[in-house]
Each structure stands twice: as C-alpha cells, then as structure tokens.
C-alpha cells in the first residue's frame, strides 16, 4: 500500500512484515505495512496566536490543507521532500513545536519563488506565513542559526547602514563570514580582491572582466567598493528604521 507524503512518517514508525498473521488469519500481501501510532500531548496553543497577530501572517487561518502549495513547491519537488509548506502550516497552527524543530534543517531552504502563494486557492500568503513561522521560532530561540538567516541579517545591516547595498562588499563580506581569510586594507577596512583566500570559482569569474580589458566595468565596481554608494538624507531615516526593528525584536539576535 502506498503511503502518501511518506516523508512525514519517521522511518522507525513504519513496520513492514513479510508474513503477517492477525488472529489466525494470514493477511500478508494486503496488510503487511503498518504505521505505528504516535502520542502527542504538548501543543503550544499560543504559538499560532503570535503568527496571526503579525500583519503578514494573519492569513494562516484560511488554510484548508489542500496541499496545492506543496505540490507546486520546487524545493519539495526537486530538492528535499521533507520540505512541505502545507505540513509546516499544519504544525504551526497546532503548536507542535518539537515536530517543527525536527524539520528546522530544511525549513530555511525556501527560495521565495512564491509559487505556493500564487496557486493557493484560499488566498493564504504561504511564503510570508512560513517566513513568519521561522521568524517566530528564531525569536523564541527554538531554532539554531541557519545560513540564510545569517545572510539576511548581513544584508539588512548593510541596507540599514548605507541605504544601499554594494555587490562586491556583499560577496566578499559573505565569503569572509564563511571562514575564508579575506585581506582588508588597513584604513577603510574594505576587502581587497585577489589578495588572501578566495574560492577558485570566484577568482576565475572576477578575472574575466580583467582578461577582456573591460576597464569601465572594473573602474565602476572598484569605485563602489572603495566608496560605498549611499543614500543621502539617510541618517534621520536610519534612526526610525532602527527603532522599528528594535520594536520587532529584529536587532536583538
């Protein structure tokens, strides 16, 4: 017998027998596959409330579990079938935190392509809701630091500081965070490309404009790396942004 969404059942709870005799009747062939029952008694009923209270998470209660989101999700289909938006919404609404925690290693892999939101017949903003679930879990310390969150923070810090981002600094800064030794100049503290450790692919890729003597492109990006492009009249706005983010608890971690 087929088990739909097999990824939701732990392997140790699936029992398969070659021969099975129940009360003297041989049922092997039809009923030789059994899922052992589980007992759950720790629902956190306040978890869903917190999600409903945020403006981008309030559509969670419209979900009627049709699984259209999961069926269209590329991460579910092409990467890991344990990534299952429908199931995450289900767990969050019941407040089954430990089950959510078990899936923490795939939950952050959402690529924000919004296929789920687009196709939902009930108008749930699925992607937003999932991100609110992750955000809430992170705020409560239920989930460890994961790469995409680190990157999101790193990105947001740059926006907060300058008003704009710069590709080179984002790239080299992130590489540094991954453990490569990036050499920085002593005065401006900006990373210097090609000196220090850089992944081989990046070296080759950045060599291309140099090889083709694309001077204008190189000058432009070098200028941006030295003098980070910034928004004028940013200081006052920055304080307001910082205040808002502090209220949301986004700066605390």
């Amino acid at each position, binding site marked *: 017998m087929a088990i739909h969404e097999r990824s939701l059942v732990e392997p140790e709870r699936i029992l398969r027998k070659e021969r099975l005799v129940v009360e003297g009747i041989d049922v092997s062939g039809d009923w030789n596959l059994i899922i052992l029952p589980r007992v759950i008694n720790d629902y956190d009923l306040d978890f869903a409330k917190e999600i409903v209270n945020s*403006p*981008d998470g309030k*559509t969670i209660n*419209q979900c009627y579990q049709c699984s259209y989101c999961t069926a269209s999700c*590329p*991460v579910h289909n*092409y*990467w890991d079938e344990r990534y299952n938006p429908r199931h995450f919404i289900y767990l969050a609404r019941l407040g089954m935190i430990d089950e959510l925690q078990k899936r923490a290693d795939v939950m952050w892999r959402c*690529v*924000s*392509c*919004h*296929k789920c*939101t*687009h196709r*939902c*017949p*009930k*108008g749930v*903003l699925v*992607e937003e809701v999932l*991100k609110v679930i*992750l955000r809430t879990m992170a705020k409560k310390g239920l989930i460890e630091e994961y*790469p*995409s*969150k680190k*990157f*999101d923070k790193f*990105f*947001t810090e740059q*926006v907060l500081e300058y008003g704009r*981002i*710069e*590709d080179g600094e984002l*790239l080299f800064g*992130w590489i540094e965070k991954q453990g490569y030794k990036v050499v920085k100049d002593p005065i401006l503290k900006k990373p210097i490309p090609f000196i220090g450790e850089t992944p081989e*692919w990046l070296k*080759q*890729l950045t060599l*291309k*404009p140099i090889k*083709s003597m*694309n001077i*204008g*492109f190189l000058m*432009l*990006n070098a200028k*941006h790396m030295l003098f980070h*492009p910034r928004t*004028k*009249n940013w200081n*006052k*706005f920055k304080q*307001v*942004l910082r205040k*808002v*983010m502090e*209220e*949301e608890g*986004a700066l605390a971690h």
Partner: protein
Amino acid sequence: MGVIGKRVAYYPGCSLEGASRAYDVSTRIVAKELGLELDYLEDYNCCGAMESKNVTFMGTMLLNARNMSLARKQGHDVIVAPCNGCSFSLQRAEYFLETDRNVFERVNALLREGGVDQLDKIPHTYHILEWFYHEAGPQKVKEKTKRPLRGLKVANYYGCLYTRPHFYARTYAHAGGQEEEVRPRKRDTADDDEHPYYMNALLEAAGATSVEFEPMHTQCCGGPHSLSDEQVSEKFVMMILQTAKRNGADIIATECPLCHASVEMYRHRLMMKGVPDVDVPAAYFTQLLGLAFGYSANDVKLKDNLSDPLPVLKRLGLA
C-alpha cells in the same frame, strides 16, 4: 495601450548601478528608441530585496514607502523597476499599504518622523517588461529593428517573481480566498500568470526565435539563496541551463539582474565541475533589443556579461 504612461519614475535598484551596469545602459537605450521616457528616482534606497523582509516586516514597508514617497514628490503615479526583486518588493508594499489600514497609518507616521513626505497616494509599480510591451509593443519594436536577430534561438527566462504571486503582481483574474473586495484583481497590463509571453513577443518582433522553455521559464534560480544555500541554487540553475541547451537555445534572455547574476555564477561553477549541457550564455533582453536596433556590442555593454555571449552573437553576425 497607454495605460501606464509614456513617462514614469524609474527605480533602478542597487545592482543596476554596479555589477549589472549593462542592464541599466541597455534599458535606457531601448526606452529611448521606443520613444519612452525614464525619470530617474533621485536618492532612492534599497528595496530590501528578498532578504530584509525575512528579518523585519515594518522595516521593509518603510524602505519601500520611502521610495514611493520620492516618486510622488517627483510627480509620478507609476514606478517602473527593471528587477524582479525590486518590483516584487514595491508591489508587496503596495499590497499591504492598500489592504491594511493599520500598516498604512503606521507607515505614514513613521515616514513623517524620518523626515520624508507622507504618502498621499500609493503609486503602482510595474515591471519594465510590462511597460515596454504596453507602451511600445511588438509593432514598434519591429519598426525600429534595423538588424534583425535572425537565426538567434533564445530561451526566454522570466524568473519567478515577474508574474508571481498574483496578490502582489495582480496577474490573475480571480481574486482568491474570501473578502474579494480587498484583494486586488488582475490589471489590464499584466502578463499571463502561468505562461508569460511578453519577452517572447518583443524578441520575436526583433527577429529572434524562441525555443521551447516551459516550465523552466518561471522556475526559480534560487536567487535569494544564491550565496547562502549553494546546493539548492546550483541544482535549480543546472535544470534551467540544461533545459535551455537541450532545446537548442543559443542564449538565455533574462529580465532580472539577480537571475542573471545567479545564472552566470552557477553556470561557471557547473562548467568547472564538468556538468554537461550547461554552456548557454545569458544576456539581458534589453541588450538583445539594443543589438536589433542597430547599436554595437560595446553600446549595450556585452563585455560586462561574465558568461560571454559575444562569440555566439558574432557567429550569427549579430555583434
């Protein structure tokens, strides 16, 4: 035709002023040729892209509201963004500001506190592709084409956020869910939500041939995670490139700097690993249109593309 307007506020976004200079330059060229006017949004800030919204909700609303306020100050009702991420972020802010009264009032109060004009009206955001299609259209492209892209087989890659989700991009006639009156309906200018065709139409009008590319034309490239989750992004880009190559494409036409960067970066890495059928170069659709309008490869900055489409275009006598 004529819904969006010939003169609009142009929100380039950070990457178009740096690593994606080619897109900015070629966009301006195409707009000029098609008789459209871009009014550069002075002193804009980052839209928060796909990253900031995972950290803070109100902060992202504020970032986008500031840009909207700047557009209003310059006297525009319409913002046009060439990047999927930017247009998504602005449309997302538009959605929440329009449907949630509390968010709107809070944002306005915070804008005043931050020394920016309040929003008297929420400007609508369109992707630049929609704008080109609706204000100029394939007919105009055909008229302006001096050097048809004859023989060029293009895989038109739209990326994920161009038509999605329909709540923000308003690409879907049915509102979905309850409270239909608060959900924005499909707008007249919107592309088909599951089978977008605007880029196909424009490039075909310029003489190119589109190859079969569904369903990869709206498959995500893993862009938001292209640096932080390399395994997933690599797999997605591999699927996109192999589909394009196996359907006979010479080149992938992109319309988003993030997709473009992601495709170029992972194309290089996949080629280093020796994965077969991934050597399709990428170019912005505006670059290809610029070439068709008679501009040189240097004018549309084809050298900036790290995946190097020049040899392919030269072989076909287009550059």
